[in-house]
């Protein structure tokens, strides 16, 4: 499985930079993620978190720098290419089709098919997709009353769960979640957090963008703090606490190794 000398690293970025015209949204980000590790990205609004994620997932093209995914340098043409390589993203705005049911949404754009010689009219393998969906939901411990119901009739939490269940169904190498619980109620947030714990147990690598300090402290191994387009801290969860992290986010402190950058 390991493809590079440092096979334990699933994702690495070197000097990742993104300029929007004169605006330096992301400046020289050096980041590494070990296989199976859960890392949170924190920072104020406009600190560069989402910009960082958009470069990795191919939604935008970087200005300069390298991304090494699964041991190989990559340059994704778009989110679909990133997904095919094994990076599954749960976006803030859910990419779900309201009038389709759960298996249809999980397999949207990559349906299991039969009779492929029929081209665009090839047949859907409903049973295969249903079974894979049930397996994926079981893996993530997602509870949905009936997978044949359309997304339209589901709560915000259930929709988020469907989006997350894609990850488990397709055995991705890296999952990125951009504020997955920002729009959810207490119980629904708890449900999503349980799924994230489940992913940890199964050794899925995860980048979690979140503003929720309690959530981050409970769920991840490591916290990377962004401020004004730069990484200013890389903290092991065991060696820090909420106040410490807030100090880095607000700029009261800057990590020793990042003094130059800040």
């Amino acid at each position, binding site marked *: 499985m390991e493809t590079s000398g440092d096979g334990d690293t699933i994702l690495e970025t070197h000097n990742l930079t993104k300029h929007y015209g004169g605006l330096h949204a992301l400046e020289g980000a050096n980041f590494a993620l070990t296989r199976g590790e859960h890392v949170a990205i924190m920072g104020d609004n406009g600190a560069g978190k989402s910009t960082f994620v958009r470069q990795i997932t191919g939604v935008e093209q970087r200005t300069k720098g390298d991304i090494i995914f699964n041991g190989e340098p990559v340059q994704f043409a778009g989110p679909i290419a990133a997904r095919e390589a094994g990076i599954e993203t749960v976006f803030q705005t859910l990419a779900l089709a309201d009038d389709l049911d759960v298996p249809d949404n999980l397999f949207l754009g990559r349906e299991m098919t039969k009779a492929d010689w029929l081209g665009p*009219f090839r*047949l859907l393998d409903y049973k295969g997709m249903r079974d894979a969906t049930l397996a994926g939901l079981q893996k993530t411990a997602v509870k949905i009353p009936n997978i044949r*119901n359309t997304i339209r009739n589901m709560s915000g939490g259930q929709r988020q769960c469907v989006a997350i269940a894609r990850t488990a169904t397709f055995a991705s190498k890296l999952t990125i979640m951009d504020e997955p619980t920002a729009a959810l109620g207490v119980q629904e947030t708890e449900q999503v957090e349980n799924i994230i714990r489940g992913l940890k147990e199964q050794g899925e690598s995860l980048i979690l963008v979140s503003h929720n300090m309690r959530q981050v402290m409970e769920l991840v191994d490591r916290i990377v703090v962004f401020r004004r387009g730069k990484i200013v801290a890389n903290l092991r969860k065991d060696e820090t606490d909420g106040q410490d992290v807030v100090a880095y986010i607000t700029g009261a402190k800057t990590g020793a190794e990042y003094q130059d950058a800040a």
Partner: protein
Amino acid sequence: MAEDSQGTGGQVYDSSRRQWPNEFNVFAALILIILIFEGLGALIYGQSFLFDSKDRFDSIFNEARLKIIILQVSIIGIIALGVTQVILTGGIDLSSGSVVGATAMITMSFAQVSEVNGLPNPKAVFGPAFMDLPVVVPVIVGLLCGLLAGSINGLLVAFAKIPPFIATLGMMVSARGVAKWWTSGRPVSFPTDEYALIGGGMMPVFIFVALAVLFYLVMKYTVYGKHTYAIGSNEDAARMSGINVARHKMMVYAIAGMLAGVSAIVLTSKNLTAQSGMGIIYELDAIAMAVIGGVSLSGGRGSIVGTVIGALIFGVIISGFTFLRLDAFYQEMVKGGIIVGAVILDQWRQQRAAMKA
């Protein structure tokens, strides 16, 4: 059934807990409308609408009227199958009536006989070299005409990003122009005997039913169908999921155009003539059938089954008015009301669904 509930740690596939299909409601509406006409018929004229009221033992239904209803809706119903697909993507096709007109004129020109009662065909469009052709020639010409018109619609909508309403409105005007230009407005008549068989007797019904079954299967069981629903449901999600939205829309409009072509072939064959005014307001009738059948104008919701039932409702209402001896003017007035009513019902359903979610 063993497959009914496959439980795995809390989530199930349980067919008994599936959502109530909208088609049932549409079907209930069909039954209700028939009952209303039965009631009115019994009250006013003492006659039954659909049942045989002459006390003969050999039939329960009034077969003549049933035949008229089904035959009446078949030709526009073929168009409605294509329009349904277009509406499911969140678009609209206003051009189908005019495409029927243009295709009718062009197709009929390739289906003419050279001699009528021993004299040269008085309505001849081409010279003898293009007369008495085998039936496949006009059929292929008709399909290609429809396909071409539909493809132009598709190009405008999918690649030039022109709103479907405007793109197909342009085609509606232009195709009618083609229909009139083709023979400077003169009708084209006297087809070969083989061509006349296509729309003879109950053939339009068989063709409609065969196409309805085909597209029911296509929409339900193929990737094409799934992507059509996905695009109408959330176009951005479809694009982000890797569906080639432009190419797919192109295909949907092309198929809709081709079905308008099929309709033109059947119509000219049934009438044994083509006129430049053929198919006027067919597009609205076809849209009405789809909307009455529960196809949502905002896309993503509806089905071929719904449209077929919608077509029957449409036919029953028209036939019902004739049965009640109402003038054609009233029929048109009420038809407009039904279309608007169906759209209001659709929006009301959407609001209710949005409130529940």
